[in-house]
């Protein structure tokens, strides 16, 4: 069996905010069409990893990145305009951020910034993304209302719809459930399973069991280092390569 070429290849990645090292010598592959769950306690470097992949690190004052990240074989630091990279990678932040504009405009924002003007196409796109994010039925009669006035759970799904608006090949979710009620969390988890058909997903999560439910593979980070990555069933078994993995997923520390 030929192993598929990795969608994202990370080699020797280190990152620091000023003197504070947040990632140290991380090497990791993310395969096409999988859900890679990334777990680890706060400060493990999970969010920094995402910031490096889509070069948001450029926008963070004092953040230094070393090592190599290739998306589809292309070095991310070689993108002259990081926007070209970011348009291919959807990102959902921990706290929902509805932009201060209508629900429709929230989802249409990125395509418009990319030059899409056709009203009919935009309307179709917005509906498709809202449906994919399991939000359309709740908001279809008030697409002109402010996105910031939705409830937290709805705003988080709006953020997902927005992240889908550019048809990204990669979707990064950063602890999306942190400010969302359990019912919405389960709704979004269903959405994620659905989206897996179309894209590669990196799911950073503070909920170990969420990683177990959704991850094809799971990676554990501790203090900026990758401890172990492997099939989720291995990570959650007794046969972990590193004893800390077993201890962490069993909740012996956190």
């Amino acid at each position, binding site marked *: 069996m030929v192993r598929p070429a990795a969608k994202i290849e990370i080699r020797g990645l280190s990152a620091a905010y000023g003197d504070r090292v947040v990632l140290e010598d991380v090497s990791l592959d993310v395969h096409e069409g999988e859900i890679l769950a990334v777990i680890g306690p706060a400060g493990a470097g999970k969010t920094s990893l995402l910031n490096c992949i889509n070069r948001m690190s450029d926008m963070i004052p004092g953040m230094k990145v070393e090592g190599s990240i290739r998306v589809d074989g292309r070095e991310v630091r070689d993108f002259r305009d990081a926007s070209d990279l*970011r*348009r291919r990678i*959807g990102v959902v*932040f921990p706290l929902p951020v509805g*932009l201060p504009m209508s629900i429709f405009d929230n989802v249409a924002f990125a395509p418009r910034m990319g030059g899409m003007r056709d009203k009919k196409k935009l309307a179709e796109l917005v509906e498709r993304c809202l449906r994919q994010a399991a939000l359309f039925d709740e908001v279809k009669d008030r697409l002109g209302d402010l996105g*910031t006035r939705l409830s937290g759970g709805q705003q988080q799904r709006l*953020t997902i719809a927005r992240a889908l608006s550019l048809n990204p090949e990669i979707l990064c979710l950063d602890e999306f459930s942190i400010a969302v009620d359990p019912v919405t969390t389960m709704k979004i988890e269903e959405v994620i399973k659905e989206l897996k058909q179309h894209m590669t997903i990196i799911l950073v999560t503070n909920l170990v069991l969420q990683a177990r439910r959704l991850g094809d593979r799971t990676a554990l980070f501790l203090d900026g280092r990758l401890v172990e990555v492997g099939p989720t069933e291995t990570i959650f078994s007794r046969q972990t390569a590193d004893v800390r993995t077993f201890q962490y997923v069993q909740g012996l520390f956190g």
Partner: protein
Amino acid sequence: MNGALPFATTDVTRASRRRESAVRGLLGIVTALLILPLLAILGLLIRHGAPALTMDFLLTAPAAGMTAGGIFPTIVGTLWLVGVSLAVAAPIGVLAAIYLNEYAGDHWGTRIVNLAIVNLAGVPSIVHALFGVGAFVLFLHLGTSILSASLTLAIMTLPVIIASTKEALAAVPMSFRQACWVLGASRWQTIRHVVLPNSIQGILTGVILQVSRAAGETAPVMFTGAAFYLPFLPQSVHDQCMALSMHLFTLSTQVPGVPEALPYATALVLVGLVMSVNLTSIVLRSYLRSRRKW
């Protein structure tokens, strides 16, 4: 269980309540005192100036060696000065603030610029006036003209416009910018479509407040473009003009035999102008705040 009931009033709570009302009263009285000077000034101006404040006064030129007639040319002149200085200072100030807040990182270069802005805002207006004479009237050969005076006013108001605009931009949550950037929007697209539409209220308020400051200043226009008396209205920015603030100074100190009501009425017009500009800014701010989107 000890004997005291859970919600009982004790000596300590009684004393604390007395102190509370004493402090509240003191703070209230001090605050109320603030209104007194304003009421006193307005009262004085209205009592002495209102009788002379007629349509004629507003719409005719001074006559009989300033001892009669109205103040029309000075109102026109002040509008020129404020308008031209605003046209220069507002765009430059807002653009500089956008650069400083949205593009420039935090390093020694921007710190020096920010320090310069703070200090420039603290320079006394008479110093701005002398700079204006040296730089615009003499060095750039603009002569004593509306242009020189307006540029001097612009230099004076610029640092405050920059500071207030920066503050308005910084009030837009960083998370909005990040949300735009991860969607592949450029910095300018983010500023144009998200940051500016949501900070425009603060920016306008800051700019308008500087309009009223520019309208009231005397020193910066006195040596650079405002004339003691002119028999005609300015036709272009290269002419001199009269100005309300300068005219008030002239009437009060430079001309003998001016009827008492004239300077008071002039002052009333000036104060009224400044207050109505400020009121506009307050109304505008509350209107825009009611449309705030988060």
